[in-house]
């Protein structure tokens, strides 16, 4: 069966979203068997005319798309043979769409009256078929719509959520010298991600499976800005997922599953506060510093754990200090202050 007019590749590398053919993500994905999810992603990735739907569903975000994906997968996996091949999957999807249309199970997306599964597939395709695939890029001047863009974070290590936010998602920010169009979205790893616009600052959220995939192995992922109104696309750099440093050793003498090796530990003064800084490349959200009976919350900002010890240090200077993760239970005895 002819699936479309565009060749496709597998999974996240659709549309040249990764940098370089030797992308570790590609290797990661391509060595996996053609699992149901890969087949579904592949089919969704081939859908054409998807960029017209970016604004069709105000509630769309990567997390909801992944929920949609899970719902579709669950439904399709219950159908024998659906994932035997891509052709079978398309045939199965068509059958489901027909059944839904017959039963009046429709959704309106972008004013189009669609079967619910077709609408789901479109929402999924937005995740996997970036707008750039369908955008004419001949008008370079039009595409260069962001003036002197700066972005971050530019790297993280395998397994460590970059710029982790309170709900656990990874955040990407872009700042430019002039206001961006309100229709700007951040594209990351080949996918338009949920974006919040504030004039010359846009922030993007990377959730769930996409996030897990990205940080599961080393690689480099393009960061771009999309103008969903004009179709303009401007690459502004890439984020590198670096090799994870060796694990820290717990006080039980085992490899920590959440903390990487600890570098320099020092105290400093900042605005009349005493700040403890622990150099490391990875730390779980919610880690705490244990000093005697005191438990102090920490922050992790890319390359160091910090904690405010203003009211603690003087009374507990003689006790050993520990770094503790309440979820895994890993406890690291911190080295002496430098």
């Amino acid at each position, binding site marked *: 069966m002819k699936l479309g007019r565009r060749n496709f590749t597998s999974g996240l590398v659709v549309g040249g979203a990764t940098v370089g053919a030797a992308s570790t993500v590609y290797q990661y994905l391509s060595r996996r068997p053609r699992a149901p999810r890969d087949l579904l992603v592949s089919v969704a990735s081939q859908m*054409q005319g998807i960029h*017209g739907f970016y604004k069709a569903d105000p509630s769309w975000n990567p997390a909801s798309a992944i929920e949609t994906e899970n719902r579709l997968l669950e439904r399709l996996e219950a159908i024998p043979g659906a994932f035997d091949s891509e052709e079978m999957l398309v045939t199965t999807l068509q059958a489901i769409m*027909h059944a839904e*249309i017959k039963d009046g199970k429709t959704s309106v997306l972008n004013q189009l*009256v669609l*079967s619910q599964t077709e609408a789901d597939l479109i929402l999924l395709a937005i995740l996997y078929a970036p707008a750039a695939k369908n955008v004419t890029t001949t008008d370079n001047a039009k595409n260069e719509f962001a003036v002197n863009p700066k972005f971050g974070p530019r790297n993280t290590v395998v397994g460590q959520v970059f710029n982790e936010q309170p709900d656990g998602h990874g955040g990407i920010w872009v700042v430019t010298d002039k206001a961006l169009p309100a229709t700007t979205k951040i594209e990351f790893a080949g996918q338009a991600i949920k974006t919040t616009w504030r004039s010359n600052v846009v922030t993007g959220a990377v959730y769930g499976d996409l996030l897990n995939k990205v940080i599961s192995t080393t690689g480099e992922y393009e960061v771009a800005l999309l103008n969903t109104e004009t179709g303009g696309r401007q690459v502004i750099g890439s984020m590198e997922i670096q090799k994870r440093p060796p694990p820290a050793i717990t006080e039980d003498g085992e490899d920590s599953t959440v903390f990487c090796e600890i570098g320099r530990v020092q105290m400093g003064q900042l605005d009349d506060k005493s700040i403890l800084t622990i150099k490391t490349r990875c730390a779980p959200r919610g880690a705490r510093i244990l000093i005697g009976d005191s438990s102090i919350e920490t922050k992790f900002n890319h390359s160091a754990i910090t904690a405010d010890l203003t009211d603690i240090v003087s009374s507990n200077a003689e006790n050993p200090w520990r770094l503790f993760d309440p979820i895994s239970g890993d406890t690291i005895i911190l080295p002496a202050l430098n």
Partner: protein
Amino acid sequence: MLFTSIADVPDSTLETDCCVIGAGPAGISCATELANRGKAVVLLEGGGLSAPDSRALDLYRGVVSGSRQYPLGPSRLRYFGGTSGHWGGWCRPLDPIDFSPKPHIPNSGWPIDHSILAPWYQDAHRWLQIDNPDYFDREFPEFFDDLLPAQHGVVTKYFRFSPPTRFGETYLSTVKEQSGLNCVLNATAVKLACASDGTVTSVTSRSLNGDELTVRARHFVVAMGGIENARFLLSCADQNESLPWRDLDWLGRGFMDHAGWPVGQVLARANLRYREFGESPDRVMPVLAIDEEILKSEKIINCCLMLRPVPKISGIDSDYALNPWVTKLTDQDEIAGYRASMIWEPSPCRTSRITLSDERDELGVRRLNLHWDFNPSDFEMLDAAISHLNRYLHLTHSGRLKLEKPVNKKTMAARIGNGWHHMGTTRMSASAESGVVDENCRIHRSPNVYVAGSSVFPSVGFSNPTLTITALSCRLAAHIAGSKGTT
């Protein structure tokens, strides 16, 4: 013979077999057919040979109430030839299902079936100068490849086109020269006189100059138009308590017009021929329609979808429609956008009606109030129709439907269109309790007054009314001519 004014008529009273009141398509065809069958006929027309001046036009002024405006003035033409002076010539017979009572549409159906009217459509085509009355009911036309498949309860139906026939121009000489036919212009019928048994004996007509003409006849045919028929009959009954239709509950009720709805856009393969094409007499326009069995089983109103190509569609829509589950295409095919408009039949609505106001026009006739209304279930049925057509596009891989607006009472009130087809106000019925005229267009309880025109339509389908109006008029003429009754 033609008299352009009452003053030109030698006598103040005329005696005749039949008096036909109103010289539009219904009146002219009925009067001429009656004269052809040997009857002496007087044809009265309120207007002249050309468009009326403002004083005459004011006779049509009325008040429209309800949530929608209705173009009372522009939609009617008060001169010889009537509204054929501005019609578009669209023709097709009503569908057989339009004659059948449908349980999901209260008060629907005719007391006659399609086969009764079928022979008269032949005469109607002649009157409307349609040389090729082939609606492809049995065989697919040559251009079938340019149409969408007849599957999943959707079929293609066809309109034919009259030149369009302007009755005033085309049949003026016929009326003038027709033996036994006298036509009087600028003679507006204002009242009827009747005997104690309810038999109407004469009609009085007046001009704006104050002249008055009385026509005494054995039979009277009221053919003043879908709105004016009801107004005149109500007005006469208001003046004359002996008229037997005075208590007919449905008189004036059930006003309908073909409703238009801008569905949106259909994305489908290019070069579909759902548009008017061909040269006369073979001009034809295919439309998508819903199969009669589906109309019944899915409880849908009769309707059709017209597709007009739009000059350009967005690349996004075009790209999306190329997805394999949207359209079955080869690499050579292109996607096009079609403006999708629906014509649908409203259901008979008792509250949609014509009544008389207290104000009188210059000739002393009470003016009209029109309350144009719809049954709420119409919107549900319209929604069901759109859903079915959308289903068809999906299941046949023909394309996708892009809705312009959701269908609900609010959007309908704001955007519903009308066809200037005034129908239903003297509806045909089997009994006096459910309508105004019987199966022969004679007013219930009246021995000798008939109604011609679309006001007798109890159900209207989606076909434009002129062809059926003319067919009914020809049939009515034959009935009166052959009637023994009071003759």
